[in-house]
């Protein structure tokens, strides 16, 4: 049973952008995580299935098309309803609204809804990096199920 630190990386169901996901994959791999990049336009069902099967230390959602806020809320509700937030914390980042200046209000709403970390606006990558160090590195590595 090998110790591993897996992260599932995913876009929101109706966001087709992938450059953000490719960047994050490189970023997380450099930090020693094994990354399963589910790609763009991921149906919620598929993401839930992957969490159950792979039990990652973290789920990272990235969306940059500026229309992700509502979908992010439905997604975290679905994860909570399936009791999967107990398995893996879920972090989200990118650009979730087309109106600038909305970031702190949106972040607060999403944190209340159940996200473990919300990273928007400038310096969001640094904040995410710090979050990883603080929350994820500090937690014990999971052991792989047979």
């Amino acid at each position, binding site marked *: 049973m090998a110790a591993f630190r897996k992260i599932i990386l995913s876009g929101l169901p109706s966001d*087709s952008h992938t*450059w953000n996901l490719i960047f994050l994959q490189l*970023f997380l791999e*450099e930090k020693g995580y094994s990354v399963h990049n589910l790609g763009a336009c991921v149906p919620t069902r598929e993401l839930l299935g992957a969490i159950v099967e792979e039990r990652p230390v973290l789920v990272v959602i990235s969306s940059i098309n500026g229309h992700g806020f509502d979908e992010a809320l439905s997604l975290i509700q679905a994860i909570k309803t399936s009791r999967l937030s107990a398995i893996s914390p879920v972090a989200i980042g990118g650009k979730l609204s087309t109106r600038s200046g909305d970031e702190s209000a949106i972040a607060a709403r999403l944190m209340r809804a159940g996200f473990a970390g919300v990273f928007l606006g400038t310096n969001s990558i640094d904040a995410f990096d710090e979050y990883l160090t603080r929350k994820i590195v500090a937690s014990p590595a999971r052991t792989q199920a047979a």
Partner: protein
Amino acid sequence: MSRSGRFHRYLESVPQNALIVQPRMGFSDIRQMRAGLVAVRDFKGWRVGTMTIDSLTRQRKFAESMKAVAENRTLNGYPIVAHGSQATRRLLKGVANDDFPVQVRHGSPQPQEIFESSAAAGIDAIEGGPVSYCLPYGRVALKASVSAWARAVSFWAEDHRGEEGHRHIESFAGCMLGQMCPPSLLVALSVLEGLFFFQYGCASISLSLSQGTNTEQDIGALVALRRLATERLRGVSWHLVFYTWMGVFPRTVDGARAIIGDSARIAKIGGARRLVVKTAAEAFNIPTKEENVQALGWASAAAKNVGTLKPPPAAMEHAEQIYREASRLIDATADLDSSIAPALIKGFQRGYLDLPFCIHADNRNRARGYLDPCSGTIEWETTGNLPISLKMPRRPTTKLTSSSFLTSLNFNRTRYDGGYYGRF
């Protein structure tokens, strides 16, 4: 070919040395969409109009787009299926005519309803492609996209009596993912999608290419694309369309104006007839009609000032290499089957076609490009199973990391916002 359509006739009426400019405009509200088209129509210069379709319609979520229309919610484009062809026809009445053709732009891997709705509204120009609107977006299987596109293109090519005549279709393949792809693959895919359209009956075609990160390489790519189209698309009436940079866009007005101006000059020198233009608002939000018209003005003015420059020698060297590589990619793919549709699918299965940084399940993602930080050209780092050999593999001096990747993605923004570009 019998009577040709409005878009095609307009293209033929424009002087050969003029660059036609076109925005990427799309509004969900009918009145706003009409006002946008009117603003483009009234632009003083050679131009065509655009209706860009929203992302719900692209993904065939028609119930959701209809609900959004009923609730008067703003979408990121014109929901042509939800509004219906009669409403679209009324919208275009008195706006679109023989001197102002309108193209529908969408991004759908399964476009049948969009094609039908556009045709029923009297629109005779559309774009996309079985590969270019599948691999970069979403999760529809390449096989499903290829068969959906075969059906849609056959429908589009049907002779429809009593109306405008032959319809036009553009391949978006030269713009795949917008950045970080060596141009030979983009050129090859453009020609292959052109062949696909022709095989399913369309004979009025345009082939695309988007602005990259080095001027000479871009001009060379256009020259190579023109040479290959001349050789391979016999019996087709075709032209080239160039796109202003589609990657991370400059934030400053000066930077945006400079990159838009460069795209117009490259298009002109490289022999493109049409330019799809971005705007100064691109880095921030969906541009207004005024911002669109402003950008058309910048592009038109830049193109006019070019005169009749010939491609510089450095561009012709790029053209030669791009032509050689693209020819091999096309031949290796076309040899896989007597019909182009299965050849495209087999080509991706075997990795003879392989789009760098594309994480779609039907793309191998073994071939990889890199941006040379000195010249800005995009080169092959590894070619995976592509049927091209690198004579002198020019490997990047540093390994691909998240930060070097980010620097590459931001290359044009940094360059143009910082003023690090020369007029040519």
